[in-house]
């Protein structure tokens, strides 16, 4: 966590394999990211990483179901299998009744849950959430964080970028940024707050 401009998002872009223009090395599953082609990075993002953004980033005029299907389309999954899995994922995030809703028909919390379902589409090992609660009210924020906690218990690595202490409190490890530098890296003992 850290203040705005502290370098959190830059790190997110590097971790998310969207930015190769960095010094140093980044290895993901033993693959050196800086040396991958753009298409190889696309495949890595598609298979290994699930993104959740502050602004939800759902595709407009496209139903919740279709939005969740997108990563599977690029993974080359068959249409029938895609639909079944997308519906199951939406069910999992508690939107089983709203799979055919358009993004503009959903509340902020619901949109973010669609985005989480989409992030889970190809069963990625890592969930990268960039200020996932930044546009949500407190109640929705807590719900989303509860969900991330559960995903983490199921075995996924969840990386959350935030500037809010309450949100950071849900995690097991907090890395603090200031002016592009890591200033602290602490394991949190659960149940203390």
């Amino acid at each position, binding site marked *: 966590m850290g203040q705005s401009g502290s370098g959190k998002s830059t790190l997110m872009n590097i971790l998310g394999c969207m930015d190769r223009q960095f010094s140093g090395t980044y290895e993901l599953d033993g693959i050196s990211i800086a040396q991958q082609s753009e*298409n190889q990075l696309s495949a890595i*993002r598609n298979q290994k990483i699930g993104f959740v953004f502050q602004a939800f980033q759902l*595709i407009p*005029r496209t139903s919740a179901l279709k939005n969740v299907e*997108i990563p599977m389309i*690029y993974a080359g999954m068959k249409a029938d299998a895609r639909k079944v899995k997308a519906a199951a994922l939406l069910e999992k995030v508690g939107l089983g009744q709203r799979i055919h809703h358009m993004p503009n028909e959903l509340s902020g919390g619901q949109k973010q849950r669609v985005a989480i379902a989409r992030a889970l589409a*190809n069963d990625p090992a890592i969930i990268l959430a960039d200020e996932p609660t930044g546009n949500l009210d407190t109640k929705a924020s807590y719900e989303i964080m509860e969900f991330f906690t559960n995903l983490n218990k199921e075995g996924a690595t969840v990386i959350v970028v935030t500037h809010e202490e309450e949100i950071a409190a849900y995690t097991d490890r907090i890395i603090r940024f200031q002016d592009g530098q890591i200033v602290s890296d602490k394991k949190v003992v659960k149940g203390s707050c």
Partner: protein
Amino acid sequence: MLIFENIRLALSSIRANKMRSFLTMLGMIIGISSVIAIVSLGDTMRSVVANEYKNVGLGLAYMYINPPDDTYGDNTYFTTADAEKLKEAMGDDLAYVGFNQSLRKDMTVGRRTKTLYVTGLAENPTAMKNLKIIYGRMLSDKDFQEKRHHIVLQKETAEGFFGDANAVGKTVKVKLNEDQEEFLVVGVYENQDSALMKALQGGSMEFAYIPESLLVSEDSYNWSLYFVAADANQLDALKSRVTGYIARMKNLDQQYIIMSSASEEMGMIDSMLGSLSAVVGAIAAISLVVGGIGIMNIMLVSVTERTREIGIRKALGARTKDILTQFLIEAAMISAAGGLIGTFLGISVVALGGMLFGITTVVKLQVIVIAVAFSAMVGLGFGLYPARKAAKADPVIALRYE
């Protein structure tokens, strides 16, 4: 990514911006329909001309003398005696010899006078003019030989003077020279020229036919001489025989006898119409390029508008190729849809024009195939630049785009 998925995406994007998509298509619609209409109009004209010459007969030829140093004299014109001699010399190979004179003359019945064209026909008149006689008969050889005052009228002329197409047995007065001469109507024919041909000839011209011996006197000098081969396939051989014969008769070198035939004329008109429609078609094809630029323009707008969508797709694993095909297919679909509508419109315009002029129109399949293929190529060609621009977008920047 699957082609089907891209087509679905393109359709939903086109549907989301109906008006814009339609206006973009309009360029292609106008381009394709005008190319098809113009090229088909040219093809139709060519077929009309070919039909017209089929009526005239492809055995028809004519000649005139173009003397050395333009020294015109007695031996550079044709007389009726020349025609007779030529006929005897060529025998059965020659079906018809005449001067093909058509003169504007006044025709009077009672108090009514009308100016029309009076054409002379010599012996074996059907070889020269195959009229569709609806009442009475065609002029005969005897009419010609005995200089009978017989006339064949056009149906419209007969109706105009007598209120009835069947004017056989009636008399009309024609002012051939100074005085009015009385003619007996022996036949009435129906003009079979197409509406287009009539329009080309200057509207409602009416023709009446009389024996040529009454129209061309023995002492007149005539500029040109017409003849028809008994067998159209033997026309070339006959032409050279006639040239040789006339050259000897007129004591001139063969090069001064200028020959021309209906088939040559037809070939000339045909190639002229062909190149004319090709040129105009090419000009119309420029509008296709303009339509293509319209597609490029709107695709650029679409790419800019959807920068964020592109960023999201890239973050979710879309490769450069996936984004490229998505936008390329969208551009191709807009232009193909425009091409199809344009084809339909172009054919409709041609068919409507054909109905209006009462002619059978010619729309060649290859013209449609070329036009549609060209429109799809224009779509792909002009869609390529915007699609590449979309595909190359940096996801980090694209996601932040507002």
